[in-house]
């Protein structure tokens, strides 16, 4: 017997989820001095999580992060098990018997709800569904968005709301050479949507867009941003916020809004994106599908940087046939792992999974959105995963010598016994090559497979 991670006793780690935080956790383990073996589990046959199915298709440069992950996957100490759902195909209790440690990096797959009447009417969708649909995620392949109306409403003012509204505002020409899924390109081409409202609960000084995402609204082929000047009036707390040197990002966003408000929309452009603030939806109205939304005007209260929006009792209504809510994500519980329903994360202390009493559960770790909630961008997860792996390695130092764990070979036996048709990284590369060659004749970087069966058929 010797310490896990030593010469004769490789530290065997299962990573659950193959998005950025999973790959950065793998990278941190591989960079450590330890002798490690990493098995990464992914419920889809294809890796890369939200870099593949979240990052907007018209942001191809961001998707180049994939090159870093593909390089990590080349390590002989790394193995990919795609098409394996933890809790269904293999249980967490099984993994515990096979590996020294498990790191959950499975993200935040569900949406927060508005909690208002009418939220479930036909025509009311989550941003996740729409983003997954245009990015060809198999879960959302067969969603049918009714784009026959002239007005769409998006609740939320973060980058996902920006992605949803920009994709609705773009023309076929602006999207046809991206890796947008073909079914979405065709449906968007027939869209009648001309007016897109992006509605924020707080003011223009608190909007969560990055300036880079916002700037794009001023550069679209057939759409102009609209902002009514008096929307930009600030209370003194918001002025204080924008004057703060550490808040340069929000100041840039505010300046962009101002630029939009001074610009006359072009008569030659068909579409408009309206940015509007200090409004909360109180009801989505309609007989059996969305017909309008009722909004309550808000006022901010509290100190600078702590301001919250409170309803004023003044109401307005916008007619619309389609509504997207983009007000945040939450994680989904995994059988056999503690879960904080309220926050939508796996409860943890610096990446160590904790039980109801707040004590660390030995061997279980978390990183990424399922650890801290849905904040930050791709790179934020690198620092986050490095911190979790540091905790994992620190814990090894405190551990006594322990036995070798069965790891990979036993995992393969178990998956075979359970009749799980798992996908290896070299299998994925075959799917990858096929997707790229499917895209070529259309001038697209790839044409994704959007059904799990199609992906698996490539490997037959």
């Amino acid at each position, binding site marked *: 017997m010797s310490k896990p991670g030593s010469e004769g006793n490789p530290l065997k780690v299962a990573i659950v989820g193959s998005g950025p935080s999973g790959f*950065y956790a793998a990278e941190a383990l591989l960079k450590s001095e330890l002798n490690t073996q990493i098995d990464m589990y992914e419920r889809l046959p294809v890796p890369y999580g939200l870099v593949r199915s979240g990052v907007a298709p018209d942001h191809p440069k*961001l998707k180049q*992060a994939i*090159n870093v992950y593909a390089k990590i996957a080349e390590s002989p100490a790394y193995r990919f098990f795609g098409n394996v759902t933890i809790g269904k195909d293999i249980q967490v209790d099984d993994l515990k018997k096979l590996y020294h440690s498990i790191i959950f990096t499975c993200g935040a797959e569900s949406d927060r709800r508005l909690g208002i009447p009418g939220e479930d009417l036909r025509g009311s969708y989550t941003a996740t569904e729409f983003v997954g649909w245009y990015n060809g995620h198999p879960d959302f392949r067969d969603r049918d968005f009714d784009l026959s109306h002239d007005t769409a409403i998006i609740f939320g003012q973060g980058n996902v709301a920006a992605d949803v509204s920009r994709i609705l505002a773009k023309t076929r020409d602006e999207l046809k050479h991206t890796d947008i899924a073909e079914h979405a390109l065709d449906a968007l081409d027939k869209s009648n949507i001309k007016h897109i409202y992006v509605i924020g609960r707080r003011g223009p000084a608190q909007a969560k867009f990055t300036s880079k995402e916002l700037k794009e609204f001023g550069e679209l082929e057939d759409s102009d941003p609209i902002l009514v000047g008096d929307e930009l009036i600030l209370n003194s707390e918001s002025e204080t916020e924008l004057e703060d040197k550490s808040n*340069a*990002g929000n100041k840039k966003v505010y300046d962009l809004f101002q630029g939009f408000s001074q610009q006359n929309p072009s008569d030659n452009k068909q579409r408009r994106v309206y940015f509007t603030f200090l409004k909360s939806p109180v009801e989505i109205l309609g007989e059996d599908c969305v017909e309008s939304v009722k909004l309550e005007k808000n006022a901010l209260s509290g100190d600078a940087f702590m301001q919250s929006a409170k309803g004023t009792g003044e109401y307005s209504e916008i007619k619309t046939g389609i509504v997207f809510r983009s007000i945040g994500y939450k994680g989904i519980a995994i059988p056999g792992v503690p879960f904080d329903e309220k926050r939508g994360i796996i409860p943890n202390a610096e990446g160590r999974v904790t039980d109801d009493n707040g004590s660390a559960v030995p061997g279980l770790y978390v990183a990424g959105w399922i650890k801290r909630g849905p904040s930050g*961008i*791709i*790179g934020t997860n*690198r620092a986050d995963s490095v911190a979790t792996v540091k905790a994992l390695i620190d814990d090894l130092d405190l551990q006594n010598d322990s036995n070798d764990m069965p790891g990979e070979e036993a995992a393969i036996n178990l998956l075979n016994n359970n009749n799980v048709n798992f996908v290896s990284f070299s299998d994925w590369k075959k799917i990858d090559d096929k997707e790229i060659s499917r895209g070529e004749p259309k001038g697209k970087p790839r044409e994704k497979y959007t059904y799990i069966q199609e992906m698996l058929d490539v490997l037959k």
Partner: protein
Amino acid sequence: MTTVVTENCQKCRFTDCVAVCPVECFHYDDDMLYIDPDVCIDCSACIPECPVQAIFEEDDLAEDQKKWIEINASRAPDLPVCSEPIDPLPGAEERKSELGF
């Protein structure tokens, strides 16, 4: 478009940016950090991390800072990659307060 490290980094080199870089595009010498524009994916994660606001998107550079585009591009590829945060340069805290941060 690319992302550029400018003169505020000189004599500081805090490397908070490096921790959040998804692609390891930072390089370093004894003076400061540089971004390799061929590797950077323009995600902007590093920009708000810099304690002295030395990092800018190319479009946001002041006229007198535009020279740093070329300096980053030419210096970075020949220097070692900074893949994880390292200690700031001696005197970095003093320099930070001189810069008004």
